[in-house]
């Protein structure tokens, strides 16, 4: 923690940053996103198992710093979002200073105590506990115990179902959706100025929260994130209806890996999956 605060202070004092996005505790001792605008503010910075939020979302939401760059405290997974944003022209690498943090897993249910059972889904298959890309690196890696990947088991089970069973599964899930768009708001890669769901000429997706419209919304969102989603799972965490959105995004992520051996947000210079092609792309499904 001291390391984090020291670096942050130094960044302010050397006038390199305009503000730093990080985590701080509120008066109820809950860890929340916090923007430090001065050296003094950085005293409040914390990082622990409750630092679950993907702060990269603020990079496109907050106004640009008046002077200096934007500093951001980020876990390995969050840094993938930052790289993705750079790959997609949303920010320039030179405009951010990334304070990477070694991460020892974060909570799933923020209201409950962190434990082996209460560990976020993404941590169960995390490969970037030590970030792969950063300007500064703080914190230490400790041994962590991970629970089994139940999410994956559900995905496999779904894969083995018949079309009708799958449809029924999702119908039951999507029925619950209230179109609050929390999933979109919390997603660092949902940076469109006007979302397709808000478009009325034509209205591709019913705006009322009917199951039909919910199907369209969730499918289109998953499709628009195909080959792009970096798996931070903030959408599922934010969903008040507890729809297992991670299943959709993870499925598409696996397509990207299996068909193209591609992981978005791992390399700034890597050509994006959508937007490029290979003449030898698989086409066994095309008559």
């Amino acid at each position, binding site marked *: 923690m001291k390391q984090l605060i020291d670096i942050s202070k130094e960044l302010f004092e050397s006038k390199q940053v305009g503000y730093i996005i990080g985590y701080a505790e509120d008066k109820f001792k809950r860890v929340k996103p916090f923007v430090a605008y001065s050296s003094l503010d950085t005293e409040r910075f914390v990082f622990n198992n409750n630092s679950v939020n993907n702060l990269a979302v603020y990079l496109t939401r907050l106004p640009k710093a008046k002077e200096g760059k934007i500093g951001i405290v980020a876990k390995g997974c969050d840094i993938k979002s930052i790289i993705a944003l750079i790959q997609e022209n949303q920010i320039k690498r030179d405009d951010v200073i990334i304070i990477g943090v070694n991460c020892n897993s974060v909570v799933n249910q923020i209201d409950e105590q962190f434990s082996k059972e209460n560990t976020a889904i993404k941590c169960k298959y995390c490969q970037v506990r030590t970030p792969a890309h950063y300007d500064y690196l703080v914190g230490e890696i400790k041994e962590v115990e991970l629970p089994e990947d139940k999410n994956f088991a559900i995905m496999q089970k*779904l*894969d083995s179902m018949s*079309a*009708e*069973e*799958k*449809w*029924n*599964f*999702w*119908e039951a899930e999507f029925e619950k959706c209230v179109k609050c768009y929390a999933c979109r708001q919390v997603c660092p890669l949902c940076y469109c100025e006007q979302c*397709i769901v808000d478009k009325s000429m034509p209205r*591709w*997706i019913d705006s009322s929260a*009917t*199951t*039909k419209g919910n*199907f*369209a919304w969730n*499918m*289109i969102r*998953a*499709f628009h994130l*195909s*080959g792009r989603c970096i798996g931070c799972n903030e959408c599922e965490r934010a969903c008040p209806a507890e729809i297992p959105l991670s*299943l*959709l995004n993870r*499925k*598409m992520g696996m*397509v*990207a890996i299996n*068909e193209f051996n591609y992981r978005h947000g791992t390399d700034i210079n890597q050509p994006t*999956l*959508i*937007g*490029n*092609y*290979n*003449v030898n*792309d*698989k*086409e066994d*499904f*095309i*008559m």
Partner: protein
Amino acid sequence: MENEKFEPKIVAFVCNWCTYTGADLAGTSRLKQQTNARLIRVPCTGRIDPVFIIKAFEKGADGVLVSGCHPNDCHYNTGNFHARRRWIFFRQLLDFVGIDSSRLYFSWVSASEGKKWVDVVDGVINSVREKGPFNGYKKLNKEIEIPVK
């Protein structure tokens, strides 16, 4: 109505240069086919947005066919390559939510493949007919029609 023989509704999105022209050739050659398909002409398979397909299903299509130029034959050089990459994701996504691949078909049909076009269209119609109506959306459409008390 219930006893009426099921006739599938098929929407086909085809590119202007290869498949649409191939379908023209099927016509000029008087190659007979079933009447279930409705073609929507777009310049290129690159123009075909997956939302079109979702919308077609929502509107009652029992099957959707997407067809364009063979690889390397695209009138716009690379449109079909980009389309193909999208399809790889989209069809697996649809399959995952329960719209399986026996309702969504893809084909390359060139301007000279009138016969292939007929085979593709009839093949799709037959297999969707065998599969039966797509009730998923029909059920949801009904739900909307019921007035809320």
